């Protein structure tokens, strides 16, 4: 689809407003939903327990507290479910109606997710921030440069995550049912993004591989900035890798989308 950027920009406020309305349409589901994706809290309990006995490979209990609370915040702000939505839209035929609108579905889905973010984070992020301030603040960086780069890093992490999930969703044009792939993706993500444990604690060969894969840049990178794990000299590589993966992810997602559209069978009457 060729939609003009100006048209998309003009439509953006309405897309965001509709996204908010959809997010809060079901009150009970909404309440349950904002309590999900809190797995980092479980990992926090587990690892602080481990470190409570003795520091684990130089990671003390407060280090784990700061790390997993930072993880929780970044995960809340970057997690998305677009692959599930797209798969369902292709299976149900709803995708056909989306294709008849002159704004690329990438932006429509992205706006819906962006609109949901503040609500998704309405409880978890303030709680995590309070906990961080009360018990993990000394494990956070106070370097102004690192702090200034946290938000751009989270934005890039969001873009990488959204692009990869969009690409998985676009596979529905080829496979119709893509949830098995999404599950495989999540298994890799959990291990290689730092979601289950800090990447530094992975066996060295796996950590070395993880440093080049996109998963690190979807979660660990902003967390590493928040927890002050980098010198200034390392920042260009970290942010450069994030930007590179965002570009690759975006290009890959759109290429897969365009290839998929050619095969689209628009199932059902």
């Amino acid at each position, binding site marked *: *689809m*060729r*939609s*003009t950027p100006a*048209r998309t920009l*003009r*439509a953006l*406020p*309405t*897309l965001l*407003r*509709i996204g908010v*309305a*959809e997010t809060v*349409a*079901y009150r009970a589901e909404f309440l349950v939903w904002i309590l999900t994706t809190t797995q980092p809290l479980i990992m926090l309990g587990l690892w602080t327990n481990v470190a409570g006995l003795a520091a684990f490979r130089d990671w003390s209990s407060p280090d784990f507290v700061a790390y997993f609370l930072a993880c929780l915040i970044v995960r809340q702000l970057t997690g998305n479910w677009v692959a599930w939505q797209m798969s369902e839209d292709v299976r149900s*035929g*709803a995708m*056909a*109606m989306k*294709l*008849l*609108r*002159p*704004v690329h579905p990438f932006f*429509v889905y992205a706006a819906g997710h962006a609109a949901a973010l503040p609500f998704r984070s309405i409880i978890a992020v303030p709680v995590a921030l309070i906990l961080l301030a009360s018990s993990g603040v000394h494990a956070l960086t106070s370097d102004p440069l690192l702090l200034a780069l946290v938000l751009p890093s989270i934005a890039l992490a969001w873009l990488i995550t959204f692009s990869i999930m969009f690409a998985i969703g676009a596979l529905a044009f080829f496979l119709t049912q893509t949830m098995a792939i999404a599950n495989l993706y999540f298994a890799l993500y959990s291990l290689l993004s730092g979601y289950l444990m800090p990447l530094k604690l992975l066996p060295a060969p796996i950590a070395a591989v993880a440093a080049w894969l996109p998963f690190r840049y979807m979660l660990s990178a902003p967390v590493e900035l928040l927890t002050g794990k980098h010198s200034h000299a390392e920042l260009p590589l970290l942010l450069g890798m994030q930007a590179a993966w965002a570009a690759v992810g975006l290009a890959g997602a759109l290429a897969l989308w365009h290839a998929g*559209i*050619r095969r*689209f*069978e*628009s199932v*059902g*009457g």
Partner: protein
Amino acid sequence: MIRAVELTKHFKVHRRPPGFASAVRSLVRRRYEVVKAVDGVSFTIRRGERVGFLGPNGAGKTTTLKVLSGLLHPTSGEVAVEDFVPFRRQASFLGKITLVMGQKSQLIWDLPPSETYALNRAVFDVPAAQFDKTLAELTELLELAPLLDKPTRQLSLGERMKCELAAALLHQPTTLFLDEPTIGLDVAMQVAIRDFVRSYNQRHEATVLLTSHYMDDVVALCPRIIVIDQGKLIHDGDLRQLIKARDPDKRVSFTATQPIAADDLARLGALLVRDGQRITLRVAERDVAGVVARLLGELKAADLAIEDPPLEDVLRAMFGARRKPDGEP
């Protein structure tokens, strides 16, 4: 204008017999078959025409509409709608067309229709004044006022279809692809939708390509019909010509005011329906005048009507009793 030249659309379909064993076998070895949903169809529709698109289930009607609206890439052939190649789905093309599918919804399920309208206003970049005017018109014509703020999931099928139609027309498209727009609606609502489509066509000189389960929709709206069967075009032309070519006999219906012997009836024409005193005969066109004179004079028949054969009957004869002339699944 809509133009299709030797349009084909083939699908690769996985075939599997029923049963557990075949389900397991299909994991390692699959049998595919190429289905020619549309097979070399050509036609041209001028701006402002209303055309009925008919065929039995699986004839390729919906597939053709999806190709014309840009949802599907054709396997081969040429297709142009309003001078655009549909599958490129340029924004200016999408702004000129609409596709209403009776079995699909573009309304946002959890929100009231007014939110879908706001979304369409934004993505189609409809100026606010034009949007307000068009929505006011549509609200009045389709009696939408009580529906606009109810969540879509709580609307009845008929209410939803009216809201769908409004959502599809807010950007004032000039080519309408209507796929079963009256499915599931009661008769009064079907008539309202038909009247609305005709009025929209006349006011906007919009081209309308319509498939419908209900032949009354087609007869009332479409002077021209295109018939396809098994992906191939088998008729393109005037509706009355089709009926005349396929079944030139007339239907003569009357109410008998006195007993008529079976032999007398047989001499008048072939008995099609006898429902109490109401009788319908099939009469060759050249004999109609004589039969009518005799019925009104000698036999004192009342409420006499002479009609063309119903389109359903003509299509049923064309496609055979194996299939009904209606929409695809």
